[in-house]
């Protein structure tokens, strides 16, 4: 298929009796920033390792740029990996690490040194070439690993939770940088993460994994606004579901509905039902969490169940917010935010 960087067909992998990957079908386009999102043990890393060639599939095929590479060794595939633990060679300098892939491919020494230095400069580590990996900080090692994987200009770059070991500030900074680098080089990125926010902010498309299967593939907005299964609704964003009786009373339909917390407004209980086409539910505030820029209300509904509502702190302060605990409120949101989760009654 034209324009397809990666194509996985009915991919399966069993370890002993456990089925780590249970029939995955995916197509990833050229130049795409594609994330595989899921909890640990959902099979996303195993799929990545099968694309890289570190694991052989039990059945199914892996195609790279239209040709079947299922039986090829890692060194026969035009794919490079950024490892979760970076896997920088401890006995080589930073520059030797970055140049290693070129050396193996017999690029002449002056040329590979030039390219390695350029790659290091592009991750802002130009002066660190003669150091050992053990002399670098976590964020610097991460960037060396990125430079090492990018220097050979592979068709596809695989990233296995590359930001997992970094602290929050650095991680947010690296998210922006990674995305910028990807746009600049135009290489297909396949990014494995369990962090939904990371996946939502960086990706062109996301595949949500659960128990060895892909639950949904879509753009971040599709995944967030229109989850295809109850699992996706619960895993991406705050789990905010109305079920059974509560759904019947509030929405008027006995099924499972997902309402995103930021769509819900918290009003005084006495507020009039003056807005058309809105769903309303009364309840008692069980918990108030002050988040600085916003406040999270956990409301026990009279109809049963609990909803979370997120309000910008436009006028309220932390003192005002605490007073809400235990008070009676009305929750109101536009009916178009009632999203019926498919696959439920």
């Amino acid at each position, binding site marked *: 298929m034209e324009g397809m960087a990666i194509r996985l067909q009915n991919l399966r992998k069993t370890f002993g009796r456990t089925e780590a990957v249970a029939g995955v079908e995916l197509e990833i386009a050229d130049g795409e920033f594609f994330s595989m999102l899921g909890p640990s043990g959902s099979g996303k890393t195993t799929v990545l390792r099968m694309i890289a060639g570190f694991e052989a599939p039990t059945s199914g095929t892996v195609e790279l740029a239209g040709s079947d590479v299922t039986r090829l060794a890692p060194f026969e595939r035009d794919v490079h990996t950024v490892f979760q*633990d970076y896997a920088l060679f401890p006995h080589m300098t930073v520059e030797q690490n970055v140049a*290693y892939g070129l050396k193996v491919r017999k690029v002449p020494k002056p040329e590979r040194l030039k390219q390695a230095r350029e790659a290091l400069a592009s991750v802002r580590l130009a002066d660190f070439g003669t150091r050992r990996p053990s002399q670098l900080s976590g964020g610097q090692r991460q960037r060396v690993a990125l430079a090492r994987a990018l220097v050979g200009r592979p068709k596809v770059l695989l990233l296995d939770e590359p930001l997992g070991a970094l602290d929050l500030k650095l991680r947010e900074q690296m998210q922006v940088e990674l995305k910028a680098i990807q746009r600049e080089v135009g290489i297909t990125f396949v990014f494995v993460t369990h962090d939904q926010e990371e996946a939502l902010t960086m990706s062109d498309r996301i595949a949500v994994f659960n128990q060895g299967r892909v639950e949904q593939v879509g753009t971040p907005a599709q995944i967030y606004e229109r989850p295809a299964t109850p699992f996706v609704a619960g895993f991406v964003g705050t789990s905010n579901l109305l079920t059974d009786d509560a759904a019947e009373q509030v929405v008027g339909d006995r099924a499972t509905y997902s309402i995103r917390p930021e769509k819900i407004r918290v009003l005084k209980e006495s507020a009039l039902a003056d807005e058309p086409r809105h769903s309303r539910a009364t309840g008692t505030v069980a918990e108030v969490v002050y988040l600085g820029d916003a406040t999270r209300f956990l409301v026990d509904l009279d109809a049963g169940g609990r909803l979370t509502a997120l309000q910008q702190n436009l006028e309220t302060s932390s003192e005002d917010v605490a007073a809400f605990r235990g008070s009676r409120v009305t929750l109101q949101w536009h009916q178009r935010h009632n999203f019926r989760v498919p696959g439920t009654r």
Partner: protein
Amino acid sequence: MNLSRPARITVRIAAALGFAVIYVPLLLVLINSLNPDRSSGWPPPGLTFDWWVDAWHSSGARGALWTSLKAGLGATAIALVLGTLVAFACQRYKFFGREAISFVVVLPIALPGIVTGVALNTAFRTVLEPLGVGLGLFTVIVGHATFCIVVVFNNVIARLRRMPGSYEEAAMDLGAHTFRTFVDVTFPLVRSALVAGGLLAFALSFDEIVVTTFTAGPGVQTLPVWIFSNMARPQQAPVVNVVAAVLVLLSVIPIYLAQRLSSDTASGSRI
């Protein structure tokens, strides 16, 4: 840990006594090798290097030293190859009987030398002799290798356990085929463990006497065996002292190097 003053003094005395028991006799050997009194009378009436000159010219001692070196190098070479292979197999692959194999590999170091000696002696005579291979240097080397493998195996497997498999995956990912990965990444990372294991193996072989006695044919005499058989001869006693002193000094080197290598890499090779 904070100790009371009397406790601290007691512990220090005990430690000093412990080291004295080990090292004073060695010191005595060194002094006696310079003692002009042929029967090692005490205190030494003077100082002489005659025995060192005698030892240098003693063809028996030199021949035995040469035999010991050959036996030690041979056993170490076998142990390095086999011990490394077994360590890789046990650490990198899962297979039926893996635990049993690693147990069976380590066991020979705990077996009494006399048992290994008798068993090997019987086996060599019943299996090898009909094939025309008599007891000799070759059988000594094989005998030593049985327990030298253990130290190499232990060193290499400890290194492999600490080394994440992702290094090798990264090399292959960057285009290095299996052998290239071994040369560029795996070998450099286990090299110091191999050197440490090899030095220990050589030291083990070099001072072995029991297994050697049972596996060496007539005319093959390693240095420890030569010392043992010459100790009782009053004529040779001073020369034996010299040889023993030389051996003490020689053993210091590999042990010191092995210790430095294993501690260096414990801190240096991790990232």
